[in-house]
């Protein structure tokens, strides 16, 4: 049966150069270009002068300052950061609900029922206009909002709350609108037919069904808000980030570590709460709620007691938070604030357009882009590697790579699991700005420390997400491979990665969009890119320059967003 039948149709091997390999080549080229932009190929990047400081910093990790006064300060600033986050999230969700409903298709269909005909332009225009308007606050990083509000309100706790609420509110509005539009509409239709007004129809026919998803996303936003609140401290808004900055500037590394540990703890607690809640609500991954990502089957679900208790806890926490931050709420509408606001708007127009600024903005845009590419490459590769031991169904006993059930192997597996989970947690608990500050110990200012900071932070996030993807892989083909005698790595390469890579790639592309926005943050703390220029312009009140840089940043952000969704479509992930 082995001889070749002469009439056998000749099947050609598919060419190795296909769409996927083409993208791989483009990616590698982009990476090399980015490394070149970062100056890796022309001169030293390591700052040997900073080694001693870096060593001191690392050593201090073992001896954090645990004196009574500092621990009290750490506790107070942790609570402040939490309060910023809770108050900011409360406002963000309020904004998100209002604008989410207003920017959903389903709302406008209730207002202007189409009755099977194409609606006239004047009926569609409000939705299109609102969606376009919401894209702008969303594209501006919370740190820029923070600096802006500091210039208007001074160093008031309101700065942090507003800087979180506005961009997060715009993001939340987009997600909420998508959730509402994807919620089944039969109940709504029924109410509509019986002549119920649009507002009531939404309230009774749509919102109850959408609630679990809305809730899950709200708690995810709270998680993000805690990191944002800590980061906003770095630009002077108070809380943990502010204390970290002060201790870092006075070279008190032992104190820095006390605050860092507090931040890690706070972040771990919210992270745990949020994922516990999601599991209980049987909700898919939080990022699956991003529009444009392939949606997963969402089982029907009801509000569980745990969610109810979480809501009750929030109901207590929100007023407490607004009280705890001791904000000067009168300042919001004070004549001075309004005058300053008008002044900023007046000073910013028209944007400065001189040739020198434009030329340097082009150069800085390229640098910022390359920073984001380096960061996301580091995060993608590192996250993929760490996601394997961090997935609960792999190295643990009984897992695919758990090997035999010998005691030593079980202990080894558990250690791998705990170490990788812990590393990922620490990486994402300390935000990009803090990692960039650490990188600045031993790298010269520029693209590299920024890319490293962004990369490490996103590695922590992507690693955890990819671990969740890996945990959801169908186990049976893996067991089948194993039953044939395939080794652990072979199971990984032939069974796991083919199943997980498409989804992981979608996450990577989504985080790239987040990365390009966050480049301003690492720029503010001294790494390179447009962020650094923006920070300098902000602090020298050069608002016309700020306006130009903001426009450059917006162009870059929208460019990366559309490139990312184009790649997603091209690779069908």
């Amino acid at each position, binding site marked *: 049966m082995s001889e070749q039948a002469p009439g056998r149709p000749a099947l050609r091997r598919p060419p190795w150069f296909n769409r996927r390999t083409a993208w791989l080549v483009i990616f590698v080229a982009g990476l090399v270009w980015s490394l070149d932009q970062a100056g890796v190929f022309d001169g030293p990047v390591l700052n040997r002068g900073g080694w001693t400081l870096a060593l001191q910093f690392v050593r201090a990790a073992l001896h954090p300052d645990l004196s009574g006064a500092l621990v009290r300060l750490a506790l107070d600033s942790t609570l402040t950061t939490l309060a910023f986050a809770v108050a900011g999230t409360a406002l963000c969700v309020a904004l998100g609900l209002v604008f989410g409903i207003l920017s959903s298709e389903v709302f406008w269909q209730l207002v202007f029922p189409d009755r099977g005909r194409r609606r006239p332009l004047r009926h569609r225009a409000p939705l299109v206009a609102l969606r376009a308007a919401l894209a702008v606050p969303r594209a501006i990083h919370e740190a820029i909002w923070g600096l802006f509000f500091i210039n208007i309100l001074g160093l008031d706790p309101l700065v942090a709350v507003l800087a979180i609420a506005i961009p997060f509110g715009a993001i939340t509005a987009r997600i909420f609108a998508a959730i509402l539009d994807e919620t089944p509409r039969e109940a709504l239709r029924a109410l509509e037919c019986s002549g119920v007004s649009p507002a009531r129809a939404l309230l009774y026919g749509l919102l109850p069904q959408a609630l679990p998803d809305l809730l899950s996303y709200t708690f995810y936003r709270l998680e993000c808000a805690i990191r944002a609140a800590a980061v906003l401290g770095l630009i002077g808004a108070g809380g943990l980030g502010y204390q970290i900055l002060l201790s870092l500037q006075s070279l008190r590394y032992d104190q820095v570590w006390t605050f860092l540990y507090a931040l890690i703890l706070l972040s771990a607690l919210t992270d745990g709460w949020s994922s516990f809640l999601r599991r209980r609500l049987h909700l898919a991954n939080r990022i699956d709620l991003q529009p444009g990502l392939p949606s997963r089957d969402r089982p029907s679900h009801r509000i569980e007691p745990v969610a109810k208790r979480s809501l009750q806890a929030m109901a207590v926490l929100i007023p407490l938070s607004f009280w705890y931050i001791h904000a000067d709420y009168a300042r919001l509408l004070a004549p001075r604030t309004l005058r300053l606001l008008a002044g900023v708007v007046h000073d910013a127009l028209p944007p400065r357009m001189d040739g020198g600024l434009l030329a340097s903005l082009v150069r800085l845009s390229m640098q910022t882009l390359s920073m984001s590419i380096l960061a996301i490459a580091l995060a993608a590769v590192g996250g993929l590697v760490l996601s394997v031991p961090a997935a609960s169904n792999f190295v643990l006993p009984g897992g695919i790579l758990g090997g*035999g*059930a010998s005691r030593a192997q079980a202990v080894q597996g558990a250690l791998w699991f705990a170490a990788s989970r812990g590393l990922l947690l620490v990486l994402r608990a300390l935000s990009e700005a803090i990692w960039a500050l650490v990188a600045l110990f031993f790298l010269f200012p520029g693209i590299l420390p920024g890319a490293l900071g962004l990369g490490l932070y996103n590695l922590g996030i992507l690693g955890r997400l990819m671990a969740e993807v890996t945990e959801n892989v169908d186990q049976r083909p893996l067991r*089948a491979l194993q*039953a*044939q005698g395939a080794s652990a790595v072979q199971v990984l390469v*032939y069974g796991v990665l*083919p*199943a997980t890579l498409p989804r992981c790639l979608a996450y990577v592309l989504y985080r790239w969009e987040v990365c390009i926005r966050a480049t301003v943050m690492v720029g503010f703390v001294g790494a390179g890119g447009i962020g650094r220029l923006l920070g300098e312009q902000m602090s020298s009140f050069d608002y016309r320059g700020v306006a130009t840089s903001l426009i450059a940043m917006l162009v870059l952000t929208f460019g990366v967003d559309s490139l990312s969704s184009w790649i997603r479509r091209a690779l069908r992930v």
Partner: protein
Amino acid sequence: MPAEPAFLLRNVTKVFGGIPALADIDLRIEHGEHVALVGPSGAGKTTLIGLLNGMLVPTRGEIQALGHDLARLSVPARRKIQHQIGTIHQQYHLVNNLRVIHNVNAGRLGGWSLTRSLVSLFWPLEIESARRALEQVGIPEKIYEVTAHLSGGQQQRVALARTMVQDPRVILADEPIASLDPERGRELMDLLRQLSRATGKTLVTSIHSVEFARSHFQRVIGLREGRIAFDCAAPDLTPAMIDALYRIDRPDAARGKRPDA
């Protein structure tokens, strides 16, 4: 032909969460035998297959597979033996995102080095033998297709081709045709019988259809509630044995007559 049997089970019990799936099984399967496992759902057929290919470890008792106790071997040594045992599953258990060629070559992984398996993912190796295996199962033209795009019957053929290139001494099949329509099922059973006969392989198949058990196998083992109900040559199978095997005990039917129940 070596002296030891293909499988030797002594007093094997497997317990899942306190409930015994198999109890006190003694069984000897010789090389080259074609054995059908029949019995109602939950009788322990899948558990028995899992024990035979080493994916499950018995709670009590001893299993010799190809002369080795799989529970006692080191991981690499166990893999060597497992490479001699091919398994076909009801749900195929293929990696859907990979092309057919890679799923077929996956049968070789136990004999390939890591480098070789990595290279093959980018530049498929051993195409000729994969092609031959696919020809034997009747779908050579699908070699470069993505597995997920194939129909159920075609996917089961890919799984069979995977086992062919693995070239094991024993083929285990767990309800291989339960997800196929009767016509595809018959074709696949014919194929399975013919391929194992031509290469002198031992074949152990769990199967729902008693007709196929009779027509395609030499020996039929009936499992009921975790125990061997009968073990006989296929021609000796009587309708009474089958009825007893699939009989449904209705405790509630007896109780239903009492007024207080």
